[in-house]
């Protein structure tokens, strides 16, 4: 446990981690001598460890049950949180990666390829943030360039051509803000993806697995069904970006206020109708048990696509259009009688 990167609000667990570790070391040293001495010190140690572990589990559960929105953002960015390639390794068989946008390059921040998930053949499209320093740099920490979005669209169109459903995994702080990205049409690439995704005649499901940062996220998330992992966030802007503009300064306190105001958590987005489902993570977040998170993810994907596959293509597209068409909240006054 102590190998985990520590989030400040997990501090109450640090002391427990230390105690458990100390007792475990003792137990290891005791064991040979104690082998012939039942009912003793060893048994007591074992019992103590068990009770500490139980306390650890309940504290962890308690902490995660009342995470603030800003703390949720921190969990969503946990360096050990599973990423697209981790989920591909855990839930996909025969992953056949496909590279490149055929126009400029191959953006490693966007992973695309055919795969089998459970009984399904699918096209997987997902942001990749990177784990090791070199991979993080190559992936621009999950901030894709226009070539990444165009690569995603090219592979989605390929899938649609052969009737293969599409699964997208969203995990980006936002699309990359840079010279080349602007020059090559970052805005145009994202806009075209949204337009084209709205009319691809195969089922599309999207899951925000970590960060759902603005247009960079939505650029691969115009789907029939959209879900969020329980500790992910999805919003028009990052809390820091929002704080810097509306609170004039980004710091712990303003970031926290912005995160709260932005209604960016999974449950907030569910209540707003922006996502359809929340996929649970184990207590303590996806990074503490990647495999069980992956199983929940897989179950949702398979269930949704199997349902969507029974819907005729025309109805599918009509429903997808309506899904986004109805989004937005405004006041509509009765039109005054037309005068002209």
């Amino acid at each position, binding site marked *: 446990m102590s190998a985990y990167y520590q989030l400040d609000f997990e501090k109450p667990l640090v002391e427990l981690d230390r105690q458990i570790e100390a007792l475990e070391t003792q137990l290891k040293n005791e064991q040979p001598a104690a082998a012939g001495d039942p009912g003793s010190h060893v048994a007591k140690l074992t019992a103590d460890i068990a009770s500490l572990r139980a306390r650890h589990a309940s504290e962890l559960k308690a902490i995660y049950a009342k995470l603030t929105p800003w703390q949720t953002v921190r969990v969503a960015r946990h360096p050990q949180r599973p990423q697209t390639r981790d989920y591909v390794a855990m839930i996909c068989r025969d992953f056949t990666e496909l590279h490149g946008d055929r126009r400029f390059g191959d953006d490693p921040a966007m992973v695309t390829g055919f795969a089998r998930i459970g009984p399904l053949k699918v096209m997987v499209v997902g942001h990749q943030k990177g784990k090791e320093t070199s991979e993080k740099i190559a992936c621009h920490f999950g901030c894709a360039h226009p070539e990444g979005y165009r690569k995603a669209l090219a592979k989605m169109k390929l899938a649609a051509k052969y009737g293969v459903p599409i699964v997208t995994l969203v995990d980006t702080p936002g*699309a*990359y*803000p*840079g*010279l080349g*990205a*602007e*020059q*090559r*049409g*970052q*805005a*145009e690439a*994202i*806009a*075209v993806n*949204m*337009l*084209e995704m*709205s*009319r691809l005649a195969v089922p599309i499901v999207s899951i925000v697995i970590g960060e759902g940062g*603005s*247009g960079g996220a*939505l*650029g691969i998330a*115009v789907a029939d069904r959209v879900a969020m992992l329980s500790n992910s966030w*999805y*919003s*028009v*802007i990052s809390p820091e*970006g*929002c704080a810097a*503009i*509306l*609170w*004039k300064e980004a710091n712990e306190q303003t970031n926290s*206020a*912005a995160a709260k*105001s*932005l*209604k*960016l958590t999974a449950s*907030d*987005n569910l209540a*707003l109708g*922006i996502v359809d489902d929340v996929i649970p993570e184990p207590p303590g977040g996806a990074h503490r048990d990647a495999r069980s998170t992956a199983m929940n993810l897989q179950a949702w994907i398979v269930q949704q696509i199997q349902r969507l596959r029974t819907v005729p293509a025309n109805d599918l597209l009509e429903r*997808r*259009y309506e899904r*986004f*068409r109805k*989004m*937005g*909240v*405004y*006041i*509509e*006054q*009765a*039109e005054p009688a037309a005068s*002209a």
Partner: protein
Amino acid sequence: MARRASETPTRTWNEVRPQRRSAIPEGLWLRCQACGKMVYRRHLEANLNVCPECDFHHRISAAERIGQLADTDSFQEMFGNLSAADPLQFKDLKAYSDRLLAEQIKTGAKDAIKAGRMFIKGREAMVCCLDLTFMMGSMGSVVGETITRAIEEATRTGLPLVIVSCSGGARMQESGLSLMQMAKTSAALARYDQAGGLFISVLTDPTTGGVTASFAMLGDVIFAEPNALIGFAGPRVIQQTIRQELPEGFQRSEFLRKSGLVDRVIHRSQLRNEIARIIDYSGK
């Protein structure tokens, strides 16, 4: 995604809003903030708010834009009955509901857009103009809904569609709902495209963020006014990310034309002519 107004370096008149203009006693003469010369107001207005001395295209409101584009008395406003609802009860240093009220009083408009039918040199079109004077032209539910209704109306009637954009991006105070307007408008444009519609997108200073990354860059033909700031990310965000000076002219209309992202850079005085010409070529 919406950027702070101060982040956009574009120079502008001190008095952009007509209400404030009349309140300024020495308002007969204005100092162009681009060239520093004093300009007679009537000259400026006759020149479509383009500086007669240096040709700088100053920012104008949606009402002024409509006045410049439409054949006399031909504009019929539509969807003007929508106003923002503050669904998130958003509060920063100020409550969104207070901000909205202040902007509505300041501008006399309900939100950052005006839409309707008009004739442009005798050609009928559906036209939407974003309005910078209202919360930096940011797109929340009202802007997204108005644009979508205009697109659907154009699809239904077969009219050409013209959207004049100027915006700081998606409106933060409606968070995820603002973000969804990007998908909503883009999906509506997909149907308009399928129906063979003609969409002329006009980018003016500044067009950034979620507006650029949705309908604004989806024009069948894309025009830009000279020297307009057009981009996905704001210049300051880019500068902070790459930690180097941005090249001269970066994210300006002429840079976008060279980069292959806009079809034509159009002087404001030619906009009506150019729109009419494209409508004619399309046969709409």
